[in-house]
């Protein structure tokens, strides 16, 4: 192909850079079953580890008898806390500054807690041996309600007894973890006391679980000859895992190699460190053999990171015209037996203080109390930035509740309270600086797209028909306008366990003009290998198809904090662009030298530098790459590569307008999504196909959460939803088609203006579905009810409103 005959547009298209729906490079292996997930790894002499877990939610361990298990042929070892204690590994630090038992140390605090770790020649023998370990338990009183826990005499964490100071300040009770506050308490209460109108509700966001289709697992392999530990695993943050493993095991960090192979979905579940990793590492060190541990689905749902479980008590004040004057929120956060929330250190309740949402609220106050209960630890950001879905759900419910109190249309109430375009960058009452936004444009576009006014007319007619006995179905219109806060984050205020939350990219251009880029992130389905190559392609003019992406290997990738909280594009994507720009800067010098002009006399043109005013005189990036290696250029080192560690100046604030139209059968509680419209503004769009796919998936997870998915416990602390029979994941049959749309408001501080999108649809989706349910019953007097809106709970709403005659 002769470059000179192609137009700039054609050359741009050939790059498959930003803005094009490039097909995914990952899919060639995935579609033929050639992915390499952790359970696909098989090594010579590999052993298998399996856990003995507690059937009790709270019990003292009187004894553990390993004899029968050890007598089973093929069983290599059975580890208990006693075995780990001499190594100091029977407890481990959590991401939230608490500590967690690796194996039960004297007592268990939740059903499914790890009690002993069996190592055997294969997983069948290990499973048999688990049955043979005899544990004698003495049952203790169970606390599954955080409000009860704060009143109870029962001390859950005996190891913390008497400690009045925790990782995040004073503890008020032996089952209390922390109180975290933001905003102005007195001022907010004064506004609420003097307001024309105040709406007050308890908004509960129930406990759920990310439940990726692949469970968590690892393979630990200690090479006794080299002293090097290789740890393969389902890690969303491989470098952080390496540092944590080094800190708790004492193995020097350079002697640990952490590799995240292909990951079968993460959604926050695979951010933290689990006892399975520690035990596998210990077992490999002890046996000198590779040890694999892969949890089963019940273990996954029972013991690895849960999400949400926030009781959010809210008050919202407004003038009688509907202008919001203040927002007050007190949250009781159920953290389970250990505080293992995955939040930046300074934010024990994550970014819950984004709970003023898309609205210009002058005064606000938030307090969060963390509480221990007899439930599994976790509190991870399940397909959302840290606690952002809780915050969005809270404010979007409070807006609806306020609209009811004001007898106003909820769409109009939102419109009159949105932060205006000219207010950005906007300083929120709870401490954030929103980077950019144009909410009114998005909102109007969304309302117009669904024909909002006609829908309201149809709904009014439906109510009349219902009252006249002509139908038993109600129509709900669920509105949401959400603002996310993603891309954690600036190192000055975001770290996890002291690790600053920058991210990184290293790009190496090969002499023939192809390239490899390595990042500190790791894809779990987001398609990084496709999209990051697109960023590089646009930045340096090499075709995306000629750029290989490598992530997840700590021996080769630069240090980074990993993929969660929609931070890959905002942080690592920025690092990628910055590294590419360093390369381009050097390329400019090379081009100028080759073209025999001054550096400033060449200009960038898609895939080349051309002499200003003489576009026919140019050097393509391919030519420049070759010259970089093979031509002596005075004053320049050979080679063409760059690394960027990007510490973002601010978070990014993607937003969106979602509208759900739902039909509800009053008699059975069954629902059907008639229409779902999702408008996302994630700033600059790198790959529209992938964005659309992310939105479909995120909204579907929101559908699951809002309409049935929960981790439910009975009073004895039994997990009632431990298999996929009871843990609701919709199939293709229950899932509707979605309409996606967008506006583009670039982030002013991000090098390419991108904001991140993977989690928006979950953050916006949950209130859209829930508001649709509430909206259907609003004409009959419903103000607030709790998720999940499964059939019986919807039925109960209808029943409570007297709709069953």
């Amino acid at each position, binding site marked *: 192909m002769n470059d000179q005959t192609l137009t700039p547009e054609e050359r741009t298209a050939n790059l498959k850079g930003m803005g094009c729906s490039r097909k995914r490079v990952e899919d060639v292996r995935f579609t033929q079953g050639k992915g390499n997930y952790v359970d696909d790894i098989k090594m010579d002499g590999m052993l298998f580890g399996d856990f003995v877990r507690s*059937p009790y939610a709270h019990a003292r361990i009187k004894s553990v008898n390993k004899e029968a298990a050890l007598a089973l042929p093929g069983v290599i070892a059975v580890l208990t806390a006693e075995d780990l204690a001499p190594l100091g590994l029977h407890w481990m630090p959590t991401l939230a500054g608490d500590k967690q038992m690796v194996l039960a140390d004297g007592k268990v605090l939740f*059903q499914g807690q790890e009690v002993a770790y069996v190592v055997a020649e294969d997983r069948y023998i290990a499973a048999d041996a688990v049955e043979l370990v005899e544990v004698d338990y003495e049952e203790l009183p169970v606390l599954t309600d955080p409000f009860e826990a704060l009143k109870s005499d029962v001390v859950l964490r005996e190891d913390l007894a008497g400690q009045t100071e925790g990782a995040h300040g004073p503890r008020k009770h032996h089952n209390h973890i922390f109180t975290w506050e933001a905003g102005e308490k007195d001022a907010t209460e004064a506004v609420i006391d003097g307001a024309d109108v105040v709406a007050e509700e308890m908004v509960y966001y129930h406990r759920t679980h990310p439940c990726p289709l692949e469970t968590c697992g690892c393979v630990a392999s200690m090479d006794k000859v080299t002293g090097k530990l290789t740890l393969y695993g389902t890690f969303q943050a491989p470098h952080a895992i390496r540092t944590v493993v080094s800190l708790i095991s004492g193995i020097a960090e350079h002697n640990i190699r952490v590799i995240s192979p292909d990951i079968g979905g993460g959604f926050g579940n695979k951010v933290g460190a689990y006892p399975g990793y520690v035990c596998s590492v210990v077992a490999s060190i002890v046996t000198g053999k590779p040890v694999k541990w892969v949890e089963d689905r*019940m273990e996954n749902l029972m013991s690895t990171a849960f999400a949400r479980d926030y009781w959010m008590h809210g008050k919202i004040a407004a003038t009688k015209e509907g202008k919001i004057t203040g927002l007050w929120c007190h949250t009781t956060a159920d953290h389970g037996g250990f505080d293992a929330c995955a939040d930046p250190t300074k934010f024990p309740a994550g970014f819950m203080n984004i709970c003023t949402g898309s609205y210009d609220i002058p005064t606000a106050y938030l307090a969060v109390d963390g509480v221990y209960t007899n439930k599994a630890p976790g509190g991870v950001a399940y397909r959302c930035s840290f606690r952002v879905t809780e915050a969005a759900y809270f404010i979007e419910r409070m807006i609806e509740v306020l609209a009811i109190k004001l007898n106003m249309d909820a769409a109009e109430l939102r419109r009159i309270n949105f932060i205006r375009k000219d207010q950005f960058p906007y300083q929120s009452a709870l401490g954030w600086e929103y980077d950019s936004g144009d909410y009114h444009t998005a909102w109007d576009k969304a309302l117009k797209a669904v024909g909002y006014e006609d829908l309201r007319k149809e709904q009014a007619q439906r109510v009349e028909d219902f009252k006249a006995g002509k139908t038993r179905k109600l129509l709900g219109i669920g509105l949401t306008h959400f603002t996310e806060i993603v891309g954690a984050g600036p190192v000055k205020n975001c770290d996890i366990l002291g690790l600053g939350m920058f991210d990184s990219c290293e790009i190496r251009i090969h002499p023939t003009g192809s390239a490899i880029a390595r990042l500190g992130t790791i894809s779990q389905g987001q398609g990084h290998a496709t999209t990051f190559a697109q960023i590089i392609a646009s930045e340096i003019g090499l075709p995306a198809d000629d750029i290989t992406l490598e992530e997840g290997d700590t021996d080769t990738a630069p240090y980074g904090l990993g993929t969660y909280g929609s931070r890959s594009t905002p942080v690592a994507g920025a690092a990628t662009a910055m590294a590419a720009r360093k390369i381009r800067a050097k390329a400019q010098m090379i081009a100028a030298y080759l073209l025999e002009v001054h550096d400033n006399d060449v200009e960038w043109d898609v895939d080349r530098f051309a002499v200003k005013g003489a576009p026919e005189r140019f050097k393509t990036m391919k030519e420049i790459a070759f010259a970089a290696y093979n031509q002596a250029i005075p004053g320049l080192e050979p080679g063409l590569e760059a690394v960027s560690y990007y510490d973002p100046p601010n978070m990014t604030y993607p937003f969106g307008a979602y509208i759900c139209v739902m039909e509800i059968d009053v008699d059975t509680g069954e629902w059907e999504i008639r229409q779902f419209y999702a408008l996302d503004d994630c700033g600059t769009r790198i790959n529209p196909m992938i964005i659309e796919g992310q939105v479909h998936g995120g909204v579907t997870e929101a559908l699951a959460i809002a309409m049935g998915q929960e981790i439910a416990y*009975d009073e*004895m602390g*039994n997990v*009632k939803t*431990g*298999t996929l029979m009871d843990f609701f994941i919709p199939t293709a049959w229950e899932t509707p088609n979605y309409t996606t749309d967008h506006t583009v408001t670039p982030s002013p501080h991000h090098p390419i203006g991108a904001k991140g999108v993977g989690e928006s649809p979950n953050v916006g989706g949950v209130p859209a579905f829930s508001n649709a349910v509430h909206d259907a019953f609003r004409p009959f007097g419903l103000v607030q009810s709790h998720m999940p809106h499964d059939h019986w709970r919807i039925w109960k709403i209808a029943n409570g409103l007297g709709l069953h005659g």
Partner: protein
Amino acid sequence: MDLSDEIRIQAPRDVVYRALNDPEILRECIPGCEELIQHSPENLEAKVVLKIGPVKARFAGEVTLDTSNAPDGFTLSGEGKGGAAGFAKGGAEVTLTEDGDETILAYTATVDIGGKIAQLGSRLIAGTAKKLSGKFFTRFGEIVSEQSVG
């Protein structure tokens, strides 16, 4: 979960009461009971194979009797551990009322289950517990009536 029922037994009250304290009779009546050892008048140890449809699990348990209300009735409480399958605990209050030569045995029982069996089988527990306790008392009635008649 609470269960209650009553049955009529063709035997005098003291015979029924004695039978309720007779480990041999109890062993015969408890569905799936493999072993019942009496450690003291108040303490029993039992091994039971619970076989319900696809479920088959072995439980080992301890039962404590409270006989202070003899012969009008007694209460018992116990806990059974089924290893990986989970555990069950509960209690029952049995009252015996004379009705001529016969005795009306009424019971109310509370059963709580934990572990896997609770996670997986909760939808079936109530029916099964009812069936098993029904089986127990029906068999008990039969044996005591037979012995009494014989």
